[in-house]
Structure formats: C-alpha cells, structure tokens
C-alpha cells in the first residue's frame, strides 16, 4: 500500500468554471483521494490533517511528511486554477529539495494545455504565478509527469497507475 499526499489548487480563477464543470479543484482532489482509497491506498489532503496550535503552514507540511510518511506527492495541475495553496505547497517542496531533504516521489498530473513534454523538453504553458515554482521544482528534483486532456482521462490515469503499484 502506498500513501499519497494530494496537493494542488482549491479554486478556479473564473468562478463560473465551477458551474460549468460541476466541481472545484478542491472537490476534484477529494475525488482523487476517493479513487486512491478505492485502489487500496491511503491518501489525504493537507486540509484533512488537523492544525496544531500555533503551527504555520510550513511546520504543518513538515509534520505531515514526518508523521504520515507519504510515499508519493501528487500534484493536480488543471488549467485555470488559482495559485493559492498550490503555490505554498510548491514553495515548501522546492525548499525541502534545495535543502537536500528527501521528499516523496512526485507525480505531476497536469492538463496537457498547461504542462507538456515535447522531444525531451518540458514546457510550462500555464501563465499563472504558480508556474515558476513548478518549473523550479522540476529543475531541482526528478518529477514524473503524466498528462491528461479531460478530467475523465485524469481519473482513468490515476486509477490505472494506482492499481498498478
């Protein structure tokens, strides 16, 4: 059994997108947790773990890595999401890597119009502020990139790969 820490944004930049798609990025990440559970793995979001009094975001992130010992960090990367939580999580991950701290295996599950690999080079097309941190993380540590086009493809990729572990 693997333990997945599911990272990523929580809201769309365009609030109407939630109406069109029927879910927010946060709700999608909860769906991903359900898929991982159904595949026999443990999985959680950062906000599912209770805060300790006086604990900052970085301290909480480090505590989760230490206590929950996730084997994988999944970064959900759809087009059109806000940078809020994703930015914080990327900064912390990038800082840990820069400090030489061992981090879980990172899976970047990105919508193909935001991040794409072409002939051996990864291009980040996403123009939001979070893209600089993502590029920096990939330049510092090996990250696995799995692309998807529609959210149904994401579910299928996630389930197929989780079940294969």
């Amino acid at each position: 059994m693997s333990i997945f820490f599911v990272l990523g944004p929580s809201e769309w930049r365009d609030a109407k997108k939630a109406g069109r798609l029927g879910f927010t990025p946060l709700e999608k990440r909860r769906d991903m947790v359900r898929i991982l559970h159904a595949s026999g793995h443990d999985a959680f979001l950062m906000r599912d773990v209770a805060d300790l009094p006086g604990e900052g975001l970085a301290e909480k992130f480090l505590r989760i890595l230490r206590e929950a010992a996730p084997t994988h960090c999944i970064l959900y990367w759809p087009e059109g999401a806000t940078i809020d939580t994703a930015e914080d999580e990327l900064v912390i991950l990038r800082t840990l890597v820069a400090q030489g701290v061992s981090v879980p295996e990172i899976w970047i599950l990105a919508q193909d119009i935001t991040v794409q690999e072409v002939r051996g080079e990864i291009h980040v097309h996403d123009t939001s502020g979070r893209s600089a941190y993502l590029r920096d993380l990939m330049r510092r540590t090996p990250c696995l990139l799995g692309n998807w086009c529609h959210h149904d493809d994401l579910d299928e990729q996630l389930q197929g790969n989780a079940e294969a572990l």
Partner: protein
Amino acid sequence: MHPTFLDRHHVKPVLNAIRQHDGIRFADLKRATGLLDPQVDRAIKVLKESGLVWARSIPTKGARVYAEYVLSPRGKKLAKALDAMARTIATSGLDADMEKSLRDWLLSPREVPA
C-alpha cells in the same frame, strides 16, 4: 489483418528501448531505435496517451527543464507481466519458429484472449 497498437507509429521499438532503461532521453531513444525525430515523437505521443509512458524531469542548473522517458507504474506492471510470459515461452522447449511467433503475439495486446 489490421496492424496492432504496437505495430503502428514505431511504438514497439520505442517501447522496448524505454523498457530497457530506467530513464532514456529523446536523443538516446533515436540512437537506440534508429528512428527519425518525428517518428520517435509520434511513438512517444501514442505511448503517453496510452498511459504506459511518463516523462521524468532531469535536475539541471539551466533555465530549461529537460525530461527522460520512463514506464509509468501501469507500464511497469505490463512490462513485468510480458517479461514473465516471455520467460515461460523461452523455457517451454518450443522450436524456434513457434517461440518467435509467440513472442510476437505477446506484444500484440489485441490478440490476448480475455
């Protein structure tokens, strides 16, 4: 008979080269397979769409982000199963023709019975 998934777009040699390495770069894939840029590119696209192959970033000090190709967990599981079947075929005492036919069939998923 229609070509199978692995016979199209040079997918078979590219997949085999990726299976033999724990991470292989685009230029090395070209060398390993003897294929041209667009042929490797097309095969990689097909393999990524099928979910068997993922790209893995390579740490670098430069501004660009480079990648190598690896089997995804799903691809690794499939490769393990194919390797086990290939070993069984190889140790079954079959004549060379039959062994080759079965090996070819192994890499043609549409022919595998449910």
